[in-house]
């Protein structure tokens, strides 16, 4: 890529100068100054089909370009031809680890347009399930970041402890990964018998699991040596790039949509702490998510105590036609800030749905963040940012 090309006839500016680094041929000449490394779409470290083309000078990265789109499934186009319940089913699959949390802002937007409020019990159950999916996502993160850094065992502990949450979600909704439980106006079903006690037991397991991760991974000096001062995101730059969620909170920015933005679900009635860390490096991101897991478990226990009795579905007509209007709802998803902009023209399905996904913006900081780091640190940084490809590509 660093060779000079003769100018093409008929062009003032060589169009090849604007070629994206991603189009570079990855060659195996033994004598180049810079080497181009293709962390290809299939790679154990990139959580899916992210392609990262880095240009290396020996061990250090000079430039990095993420190439996304290998998993583009066309959600926004699909949503133009489907009804609201059908879209609820599809958007489970955007961020497949915390699938319940994807449905909530969309249903919230539809309910705003219909001017319908779900009954309090439904709101509580929705919040509990959202926090449960947050715990599930984060427990997996705590395990698999250890795996990316080299420790084999935490990954298994992550999957093992996540099973408790998935069993709870399956008992309530019927699906472990894709609950498809929200409906406009409330929820599909109420909880089964004994679910509240099982959830309390599961939360105790989660507290123990967090202690294990703290001892095994966060307290390990080798892990600290691998993650401290690696991949520091300055707070203003992070906010400018649109990084959100735990990544931004780990840089010291005290911003959490559950507390700061337009109130949604039952978060105004809950008493919870927003965790930040001043450092902004990979260790801070790990630490913040660890504390947030514990905080979510505490919130779930609070909500189980406070949950009111009552119906779980408001009065909505059989065939739902959402009146004309536009609504924008954004929520604090486990991966960051997720938003839906729903334009309705009065039909049974929306006219247009625009999805603002968290990982898309989180990944946009990679070209800046990866300059000058060592090659093993690239893996650490990718692991600590915690993006999901379905969320990036939609």
């Amino acid at each position, binding site marked *: 890529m660093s060779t000079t090309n003769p100018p093409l006839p008929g062009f003032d500016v060589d169009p090849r100068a604007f070629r994206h680094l991603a189009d570079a041929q990855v060659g*195996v000449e*033994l004598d180049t100054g810079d*080497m181009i*490394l293709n*962390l290809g779409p299939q790679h*154990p*470290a990139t959580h899916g089909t992210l392609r990262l083309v880095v240009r290396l000078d020996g*061990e250090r990265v000079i430039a990095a370009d993420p190439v996304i789109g290998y998993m583009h499934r066309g959600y926004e186009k699909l949503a133009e031809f489907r009804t609201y319940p059908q879209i609820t089913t599809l958007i489970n699959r955007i961020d497949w680890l915390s699938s319940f949390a994807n449905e909530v802002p969309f249903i919230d937007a539809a309910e705003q347009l219909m001017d319908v409020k779900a009954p309090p019990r439904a709101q509580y159950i929705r919040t509990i399930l959202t926090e449960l999916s947050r715990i599930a996502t984060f427990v997996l993160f705590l395990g698999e970041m*250890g795996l*990316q*850094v*080299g*420790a*084999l*065992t935490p990954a*298994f*502990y992550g999957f*093992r402890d996540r099973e408790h949450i998935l069993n709870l979600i399956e008992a309530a909704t019927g699906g472990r990964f894709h609950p498809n439980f929200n409906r406009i106006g409330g929820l599909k079903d109420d909880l089964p018998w004994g679910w509240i006690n099982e959830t309390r037991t599961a939360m105790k397991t989660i507290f123990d699991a967090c202690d294990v991760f703290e001892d*095994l*991974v966060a307290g*390990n000096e*080798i*892990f600290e*040596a*691998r993650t401290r001062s690696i991949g520091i995101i300055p707070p203003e730059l992070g906010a400018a790039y649109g990084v959100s969620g735990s990544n931004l909170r780990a840089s010291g920015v005290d911003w959490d949509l559950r507390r700061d933005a337009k109130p949604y679900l039952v978060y105004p009635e809950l008493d919870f702490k927003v965790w930040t860390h001043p450092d902004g490096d990979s260790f801070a991101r790990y630490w913040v998510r660890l504390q947030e897991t514990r905080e979510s478990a505490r919130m779930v226990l609070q909500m189980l105590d406070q949950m009111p009795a009552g119906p779980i579905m408001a009065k909505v007509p059989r065939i739902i036609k959402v009146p004309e209007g536009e609504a924008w709802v954004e929520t604090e998803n486990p991966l960051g800030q997720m938003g839906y902009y729903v334009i309705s023209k009065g039909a049974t399905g929306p006219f247009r749905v625009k999805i603002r996904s968290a990982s898309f913006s989180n990944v946009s900081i990679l070209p800046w963040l990866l300059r000058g780091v*060592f*090659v*093993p*640190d*690239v*893996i650490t940084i990718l692991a600590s940012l915690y993006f999901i490809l379905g969320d990036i590509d939609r």
Partner: protein
Amino acid sequence: MMGSLSLALEIGWGTTLAIKTIFILMIVPLTALILGYVFLLKMMSHMQSRLGPMDPGGFHGWFQLVGDGIKFIQKEDIIPGEADRRVFAIAPAIVVISTFLVFLVIPAGPDIVVKDLNVGVFYALAVSSLSVIGVLMAGWASANKFSLLGALRAAAQLIAYELPLLLAVVGVVIQCGTMSLQGIVAFQSTGSIFGWSGIGFPLILTQFIGFTLFLIASQAELTQTPFDMPVAESELVAGYMVEYTGFRFLFFFIGEFGTAFAFSAIAATLYLGGWALPASWGISLGVMRFLGPLVLFAKIMAVSFLMFWVRFTYPRLREDQLQALAWKFLIPIALVNILLTGVFKVAF
């Protein structure tokens, strides 16, 4: 040397050589198998709350590695088009040969040793570092730039950690006054601690720093976590073994686990007393000819347990952190260990 095979038979020199050769050739893959099964498949699985292979062979999956070996052998032998064919083929052989050569001096009983050299320890450590050449050859011959880089890193790591390994062993040699492994075993078995000879004098008591250094350095020599950056570069790039498939990869695998067994055996012999039980227990030599291998095996399992326990728990160090650990930290400690050992040896 092997005249007394305790069968009261007159065995000629040629037959003895043949028996020893066949024995060693069989032992090394077998040890690789045992270590691989017990620690890699079963212990790692239980540490991860799962069971590991259970079906192959019916009883807790003991046949799994044998089946894997058969699978590797029957694979197509792929050599990259631009690779240097002869070097490519020889490289895994060199790695395995160095493993075989280490087994020559490890004693398993009063006279169950292939050859008890006067410079046994020196020979064992020298020969085990032959594998570095094999790694470099593998990386170079693969005609793959990333493979070459991985091999260079691996070689740098292996060479860096040779020094703490050797210096740790120097402490043992100073204390025992001999480099012969049988001599070291005898020293520990017949020794006494301040006059009490209840457990002999296992050198781990005074050489605990050396033991720790030896374990850390051998962990790095085997490129096991936390020092497996050359191999787990398969996160990012593939390591020096990437172009190897089939039985060539099997050689690397046997080399890795066989060397793990060999290093554990050396550690058990140098620090824990090897095949010997304390002489004060009064067990006759004849019994020790049968008991010795079992005792040694138990001690090897204990040391390997430590090595693999660390392997499955810790994340890996970055290459520069790894080198800093060796040069700035382990080697000064090893030198201090030698100094203290020398001082105390003269003083007491």
